[in-house]
């Protein structure tokens, strides 16, 4: 457990309506309480106690475990949008197969499609490794700037 993490939890507690909170993790026990709330002191740990938080006592003793606020984990959606106004082509030419299909794994730098604007072709490259989860446009459609083209699952 790092000092920064303790501080974050303290700040969270301050803003929340809870008055106290304790946690046991990796053999370290942490109790934090707001002013007025009782805190049972415990013996010190060998390593450094965070200096700035007077109401925090860190010890080894196991205590009841209060629920930790679980941050929402993003499903890692990665959207690739069009940088230009142009026409979307899903393949290098009408006879060839499409560059990518839904479900296809791509690496950073792979060509996903071609955007044509004023007779100039620009490839759109994957900027991360991932799987093509969704294709938002169809072949030969007009695309606007900032328009989502692909969703990749990273």
């Amino acid at each position, binding site marked *: 457990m790092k000092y920064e993490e303790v501080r974050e939890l303290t700040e969270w507690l301050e803003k929340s309506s809870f008055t106290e909170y304790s946690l046991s993790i990796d053999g370290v026990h942490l109790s934090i309480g707001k002013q007025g709330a009782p805190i049972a002191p415990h013996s010190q740990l060998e390593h450094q106690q965070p200096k700035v938080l007077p109401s925090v006592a860190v010890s080894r003793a196991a205590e009841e475990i209060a629920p930790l606020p679980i941050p929402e984990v993003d499903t890692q959606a990665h959207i690739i949008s069009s940088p230009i106004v142009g026409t979307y082509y899903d393949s290098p030419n009408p006879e060839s197969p499409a560059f990518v299909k839904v479900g296809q794994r791509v690496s950073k730098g792979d060509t996903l499609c071609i955007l044509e*604007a*004023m*007779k*100039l072709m*620009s490839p759109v490259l994957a900027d991360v490794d991932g799987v093509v989860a969704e294709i938002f446009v169809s072949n030969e459609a007009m695309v606007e700037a900032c328009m989502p083209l692909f969703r990749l699952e990273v």
Partner: protein
Amino acid sequence: MILPETKQLRTLFPGSARHNSKSNSDSHSDALMDQGIDSNETLFSQGNEPSVPDGMWVKCGKCQGTIYSRQLCSYKVCPDCKGHFRISAWETIRLVTDKDSFNEWDENLTSSDPIDFPGYAQKVAALADALDVNEAVVTGRCLIHGVDTVLCVMDSNFIMGSMGSVVGEKITRAFEKAIENCLPITIFTASGGARMQEGIISLMQMAKVSAAVKRHSDAGLLYITVLTDPTTGGVTASYAMLGDIVLAEPGALIGFAGRRVIEQTIKKRLPDNFQSAEFAQENGFIDKIVSRDNMKGTLGNILKLHCRKPVACEGTTFQYFGEPCDTEPSEVVEISRKATRPTSRDVIAHIVTDFVEFHGDRNFRDDGAIVGGVGYLGDMPITVIATQKGSNLQENVATNFGQPHPEGYRKALRLMMQAEKFGRPILTLINTSGAYPAASAEERGQGEAIAQNLFNMAGLKVPVLSVIVGEGGSGGALALALADKVFMFNYSIYSILSPEGFASILWRDSERAKEAASVMKLRPKDLLEMQVIEGVIPEVDGGFDNDPSYSLDYLKQLLVHEFAELLQKTEQELLDGRYDRFRKFGAY
């Protein structure tokens, strides 16, 4: 109060908002018709519809940016990343030569297919038809800023600029004609290497052309190469790298083996700037990177500079008044090392006009501690070589605090030998605490580099003058100071070792540096008495940073006078004079 979601605003504009433009315009067009305006006449008939003309937009190969072709201009340089587009031979000729001055040679030379390669003859014929060139190089004679030169320009549009029999023959003939007419030659290279379709005969062109280059060089003539994107393979391994002066366009691909081949062989990824012109300059193989809009001017300057062989002119009269100071030695040491003391570049800026800097030792690296190049001292072309200290921390890191590596001395040597080839006098400016004492320097032969300089300077057939501007630190300084005459600024020092080093070796106490300074005899006054130097450049009290012009104006006049006198000597007189100058040192 917040009103309904903005998206619903559209419902406030009912379907009539999306009217059929034709139906509504009927009544309006009647009204306009009353005013004599015929709105039925469409603006766009067939062929007048908005459309994009071909070539209106181009892509930059370097930054992938989209460029409006009108903003590209004839230099074809990307306005965003300054990447230089590849251009054809004739485009280069138009940009670089004086109007209507180019006379083409050998325009109808075509290959006769030496190894009977299938399809080759047809390919050549088809390309010659489609392009404005018959082969991968255009050769001829022209004027560049009024200077007569032979010019060869390769064209990467023709089978990737590859060198086969015709390229080899045209360029060889160009060198031969240049020798015949005592002309310099300028070659723009752009090539994927030797032409596969002509097999071993293409390989032989490398030898053939290089031999012609050698003859041209032995005739004492100037050869300038301009490396453009791409210059690779057999062309790089022959004439491209043989110019007296090698220029390059920014970002050009310059190399021998192909990147992919190397990556596959060593199984490692190479850095992004690998084989770029900048990479080649860092590694010591390019004299100067010149952007396309400056190319004609730079070529003109270099050609003009080499036009005139400095000749002895009427002896000028000169009033010497540099009296050596009698200041405390340790104070002289302090002033010579002051951070505000003008650097060699400052001196060059004041006394040399049209200075063109050249880089690299054509071997390992471009050493920032040595600055070298050509310019004019008055009307006389000279080569200037200087040790350079920085004036702030960043500069000092780049110049290694003025302590050269072996590659710095080798850069100096290369430029001095070039000066000799063209009969150009040499000026060296010295301000260094010494040659860099480090493992890297030892690995590359610091001792050997200094020794070679001494060896070759002893035999230079052109006048050489050295000026110590700040610190003259031991062998690191001497490597540039084996000259016909040596001068010192009044508050400079010249010694076998620094006072600190001296004290440390003799008395095991570098704190006794002040004492050391007073016994070492390192001031101009002492050195003048010992005849180690010929004269002193006056400085105002406290050092010439307080009044640079006072010292530098004197320096310039002194040098002009001294060079003029030296130029009146014969070659033998010059060499004997230099030999005797150093021969006399010794007390026994």
